[in-house]
């Protein structure tokens, strides 16, 4: 029992027993690390995060959380379930699914309330998050009336407020404008600096560098094509291309069409300012 938070060994999962979503995945994630999972659409990233969050369970292979095998039966135990939910938080890919309360405020405080966190404490955390994410104006509105980006911020707040040790984020910056993306990145990085483990699934290679120590690349075969240090993965254009993460770019240049592989990196205006 070392520093490993999640350990997956040869994990298989299929939906309804026929739609394969993970086919033999091995992963080990250490405490306090930033890890990202990248891969094409349908390569099993969301499935992996749901598995780590104890919402679905492996058909085959083992999933261990802090050295203990996760099984569906454990979640019937109230203490275990509560501890696990306090330690692991998931931001869903589809904010519409995550937001089910009549108002934004109720949605954000739903988690900590269910988990029995002190009301004073909840209020304090709510105020903090509202300021950081700049969502004060939204608090009394119904979540389904918000724009996609606003919904995503609220969904993020509703998981962050639980203050879990491990944060699972399913494409947290999809559809957000550059400045909001920046804020969220800063939030995640500072959370990581304070010791939290961050596991992000994304297609956005812009953000991968900042939010990963280690990158897992999922292949079309729904298993891991490669994993390693972030710089090594991002250099491997061939691998990225093979997994729909970089694309052949063509553009017109003095009446000639140039075609070359293209990785979306370092195009971020804010990024340059920060360095």
């Amino acid at each position, binding site marked *: 029992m070392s520093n490993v938070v999640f350990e997956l060994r040869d994990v298989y999962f299929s939906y309804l027993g026929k739609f394969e979503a993970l086919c033999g995945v091995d992963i080990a994630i250490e405490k306090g690390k930033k890890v990202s999972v990248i891969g094409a659409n349908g390569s099993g990233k969301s499935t992996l995060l*749901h598995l780590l*969050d104890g*919402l679905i369970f492996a058909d085959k292979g083992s999933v261990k959380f802090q050295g203990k095998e996760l099984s569906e039966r454990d979640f019937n135990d*109230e203490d275990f*379930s*509560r501890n696990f*939910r*306090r330690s692991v*938080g*998931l931001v*869903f890919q*589809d904010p519409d*699914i*995550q937001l*089910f*309360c*009549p*108002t934004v405020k*109720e949605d954000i*405080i*739903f*988690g900590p*309330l*269910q*988990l*029995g966190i002190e*009301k004073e404490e909840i209020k304090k955390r709510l105020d903090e998050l509202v300021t950081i994410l700049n969502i004060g104006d939204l608090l*009394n509105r*119904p979540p389904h009336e918000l724009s996609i980006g606003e919904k995503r911020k609220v969904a993020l707040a*509703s*998981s962050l407020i*639980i203050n879990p040790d491990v944060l699972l984020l399913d494409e947290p910056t999809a559809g957000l404008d550059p400045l909001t993306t920046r804020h969220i990145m800063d939030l995640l990085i500072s959370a990581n600096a304070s010791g939290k483990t961050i596991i992000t699934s994304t297609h956005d290679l812009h953000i991968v560098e900042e939010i990963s120590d280690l990158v897992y690349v999922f292949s079309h075969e729904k298993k891991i094509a490669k994993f390693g240090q972030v710089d090594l993965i991002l250099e491997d254009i061939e691998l990225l291309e093979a997994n729909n993460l970089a694309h052949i770019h063509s553009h017109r240049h003095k009446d000639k069409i140039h075609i070359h592989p293209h990785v979306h990196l370092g195009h971020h205006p804010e990024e340059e300012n920060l360095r």
Partner: protein
Amino acid sequence: MKKKSNFIRRSLISALSFLKDSVFAEEYTSRNGFLQGIDPRLKVASFALFFITAIFLKRAELLILLYGLCLLLALFSKINLGWFLKRTWLFIPVFSLLIVIPALFDIFTPGETLFTLNILRAKLVISRQGFFGARLFVMRVIVSVSFAVLLSITTKHFALLKTFRIFGIPQVFVMTMGMCYRYIYLFLKVVEDTYLAIKSRVGTRLDYKKGQHIVAWNISALWNRSYHLGEDVYGAMLSRGYTAEPVILDDFKTKSRDWLWLFFVVIFFVIILYIDRRVL
């Protein structure tokens, strides 16, 4: 023919979104009205008495009185009366007519003739007993449905679920109730969204035959989709620590006003049933 089916479909869709907005109108729950301010536990208890009254009353005038009380309560709870009437009356035909129509006719409820209908040479006789029995039944449905809608639009969903738990309704039932609520909501939403999606793809002049070919219109597919959405939403609730033992922000607090209210309702209940029985 084409136009007609299109029209029917459109009305069906608007009826469905109407339904969705009425049962799931959570915005009323946060208004600062009379019923919203009452401790949900005592409120549920008092509404239980209203339901019992509605079921046992035999005199139409008293049912009308009870209905009047319901509207008055809606008014004091800052609910737009026109809105409330429209929404409740939408369900009433659905609930009552289906059950009641057969009972109108003297095949099922024999008695004196009130009207005679000549349909396809078959004489359908509406009996007096059938008519009045049906009238009473419809009125009971009206009153109960109105009270049910009133309760659901003045009480927050999770607070209501929590109250049911306090009243000793087993966890499984409360959980199932919550799930059903969610499924129906999502189903209505999926229907609405699918209609929009189809409209954007084929325009409003959707012809019936083509419509049938669009797989999404298959009711079972729609239901499946909402079922999956429901599962996902439930997953999202679990993920944030939900355990079918809902915790809400404001703990239930009983003020003396709430007890006064329940006291009034009990007195009302006793008196109205007494009058009902004695005068008969």
